[in-house]
């Protein structure tokens, strides 16, 4: 713990500009990261957290430059390992609001193992995974989320790797909050970031993000102007799964698989209602696997359930030990359980 007393001053009014640093932002012009940065800078003042309690931790990659552009505490760590550093920070000081910024390569390839364990432990931090399906900082190699057959500098005849699905990965690790948003919808991003922050437990947010240089237009078939009405399924808790122009289409279950139906003629109760709080992962998986070419891509909170957080369990054990044995004294530490005395 800090030797400083915890800050007890009244929360100053914070605004977006309080979270802007003087560093020049060095992403490529037109990069999706700008919109994400802007949305996060708009989100933070509204969370009721003093600025000094925010920590942004990143690994390596384009997205991982993020901490330099946010006027909070920040740690730009090493490739794939931001999740581990975030774990140490949050366990050391659970009062902090810890955000991990990562990408598809950083978070799911080199850092896949750590991501898995962060999620299953349910550390109360938020993971923003910028998924652009390409290695940008190293100038255009395929990533673990690149579709099969993707041609890049290292796969001139097409990638033969079956891509990893970020949401299914998070679900497999039993993450307690799983959501998806897009870099071209700031309003939706802010809404999801707030919900992720409010969730007590690990929050995994996939952001479909455009790499303007090495994978431009990768998500256009889903969120481009032409396609988004038919291809985006905006999730709202308690509301039916409707999409398409004028919400004319809906999703219903046929056996264990989803099916698209005409919402205008569907029977009452036939369309699935979005229930992110179900503890069974079956519905979450159904949503997570929906996407091109047969289904719209869901956006929003896929799953939100409650489980004790890792850092609170650690702190509970420390407090229990103190309650049971009393705070350890020097004598107890040095003498241990068994000593003998040699007389002079």
């Amino acid at each position: 713990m800090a030797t400083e007393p915890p800050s007890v001053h009244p929360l100053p009014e914070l605004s977006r500009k309080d979270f802007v640093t003087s560093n020049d932002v060095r992403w490529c012009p037109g990069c999706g990261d700008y919109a994400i940065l802007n949305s996060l800078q708009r989100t933070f003042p509204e969370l009721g957290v003093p600025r000094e309690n925010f920590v942004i931790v990143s690994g390596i990659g384009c997205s991982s430059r993020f901490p330099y552009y946010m006027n909070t505490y920040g740690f730009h760590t090493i490739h794939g390992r931001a999740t581990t550093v975030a774990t140490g920070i949050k366990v050391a000081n659970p009062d902090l609001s810890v955000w991990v910024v990562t990408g598809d390569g950083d978070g799911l390839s080199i850092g896949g193992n750590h991501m898995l364990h962060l999620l299953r432990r349910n550390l109360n931090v938020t993971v923003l995974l910028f998924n652009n399906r390409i290695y940008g900082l190293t100038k255009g190699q395929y990533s673990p989320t690149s579709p099969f057959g993707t041609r890049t500098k290292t796969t001139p005849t097409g990638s033969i790797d079956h891509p990893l699905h970020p949401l299914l990965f998070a679900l497999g690790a039993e993450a307690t909050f799983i959501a998806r948003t897009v870099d071209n919808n700031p309003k939706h991003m802010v809404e999801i970031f707030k919900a992720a922050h409010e969730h007590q437990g690990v929050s995994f947010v996939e952001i479909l993000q455009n790499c303007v240089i090495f994978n431009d237009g990768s998500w256009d078939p889903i969120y481009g102007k032409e396609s988004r009405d038919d291809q985006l399924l905006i999730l709202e808790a308690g509301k039916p799964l409707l999409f398409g122009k004028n919400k004319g289409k809906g999703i219903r279950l046929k056996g264990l698989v989803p099916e698209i139906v005409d919402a205008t003629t569907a029977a009452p109760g036939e369309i699935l209602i979005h229930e992110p709080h179900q503890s069974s992962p079956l519905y979450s998986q159904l949503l997570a696997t929906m996407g091109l070419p047969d289904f719209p891509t869901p956006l929003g909170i896929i799953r939100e359930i409650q489980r004790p957080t890792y850092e609170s369990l650690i702190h509970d054990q420390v407090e229990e030990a103190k309650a049971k044995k009393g705070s350890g004294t020097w004598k107890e530490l040095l003498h241990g359980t068994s000593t003998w005395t040699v007389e002079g």
Partner: protein
Amino acid sequence: MTPIIPGFREMKSVVVRFAGDSGDGMQIVGERFTDTSVTVPNAIATFPDYPSEIRAPIGTIAGVSAFQVHFGSMTVLTPGDEPDALVAMNPAALAVHLQDLVAGGLLIANASAFTAENLAMAGYESNPLDDTDIQKKYEVISLDVTGLSVEALKDSPLTQREKLRTKNFFALGFTYWVYSRPIEPTIDYINSKWAAKSPELAAANIRVLKAGYFLGETTETTRNRYMVARAEVAPGIYRKISGNEAIALGLVAGAKKAGRDLLFSGYPITPATGILETLVSYKHFGVKTVQAEDEIAAIGVALGASFAGQIGVTGTSGPGMCLKSEFIGLAISTELPLVIVNVQRGGPSTGLPTKTEQSDLLQALFGRHGESPVPVVAANSPSDGFRAGFEAVRIALEFSTPVILLSDGYLANGSEPWKVPEEDTLPEIVAPFADPSKPYVVFARHPETLARTQAIPGQVGLEHRIGGLEKDGKGKISYDPDNHGEMTRLRAAKVEAVAKTLPPLRLTGERTGKLLVLGWGGTHGAITSTVEALRAEGHEVSSTNLRYLNPLPPDLGDLLKGFDKVLIPELNSGQLCMLIRARFLVDAISLPKIQGRPFKISEIRERVLQLLND
């Protein structure tokens, strides 16, 4: 045949080795023998030697587990070279260990385990207990340990299988009789361990222990018995401590003195796991522990904790060090405090995971990318782990740097009595956080230590970003060529500045002379014992041990100049020797040993005498 002398033969010190199948409970009886002997009191040192297989097939050579105890009425600094007595619970244990037993030594064998099947598994064509050469060379006591144990329990409700498992206490009881040790401490131990859970089991073990002891008294009175007088031990409060426990304790003590909580994050690896296993019971000291998903995560978690204002520590062995090295680079670049404990074992790769070696010294000093110096501290005995752990925390915090603490398998598992220090004899550790009322410059340096001052999340107005990219003195990312040179120089100068805080070298012998035996880490006991004995015989030889490997103590250069020859015994191919030759242009002579085992005093003695006589 060793002549029988009535009464007791008085010995200055005795080495007893218990050896048996890994399921025979040899570690337990070794520990009991140790705990009994410290209460006499005797000076003592121990060395467990167990296989990496948890349960190799019963009766095989691979499954042999041993525990050596060295106890004496004089200073004991090593677990001893060759055992004076060997307790062999089966033929495989005999096959592995008999070669070490001194001529004329006592061999207590569990004759009932010397069956045709067991003899074959151990590679014997005939029963060695019947071998007249062996009977001539050693004092052989062949006992039906298994049968006598079961016989002693004929009225016990235990199953036959449970009865058989008590036989280690029979062997222990008999050994207590031979060495006139009290059996009460062991009875207390058995009661505290089993009486509540299973009174029958406790009673059975006590009965068998006594049966072993009384066998000596009633039927074996023509045997030699040995006595080791009380040692002249400095008055004070003592506890028995292993290297891993001592390091854990030193880390917690350092954190307490610095006013920071300790977060230890590790991944199970032999022989370092004991540190994590010890620290989990220190939660009421505010210690938090994380068993991470791998070695990399373990150091990442520790570094995160340090960034947040605690003292992060991780512990591992050689293979884990390789995995952690990228993170050590980040800790160097961001100048955060961190302690990385490396309990060395035989390498490379999986190597000899349960055996000892000192072969990671150069890795600790240089095994990273880029110019990346870190302070390196080494424990020199099991109990010295306390001071070494404390020092590692001190240097990490006062110099805002990762510190590597080297131990080894021999120290980790070995144990010795430790005179408990008074809290007020421990130095304060001063590493304040940044003052929020003043402007914060991230990489501003303390004028003497060159350490940077940490501001931690939660401190108002000190928000800042750090990372692995090169930065300038203000913490801004910088690709400027001159700045990179300057920052590299400053990071190295900061590590060098640690030297000013190091105590003078402690010497055995004179400051000048014919030969200096220079060691580091766990060879301290063997080297000191050798040199003390040789000096008592009138030889002109001195020795010292390096606790600090980086930076080297400032008085080392002058010391080396005062000797005609310098001998460096190491459990590697000559890593310190290479360093000393390079740094001081001294024609140091290496005494390497790479067998997964610590030095014997005789090995060092022989080389020293050669050099003195050249």
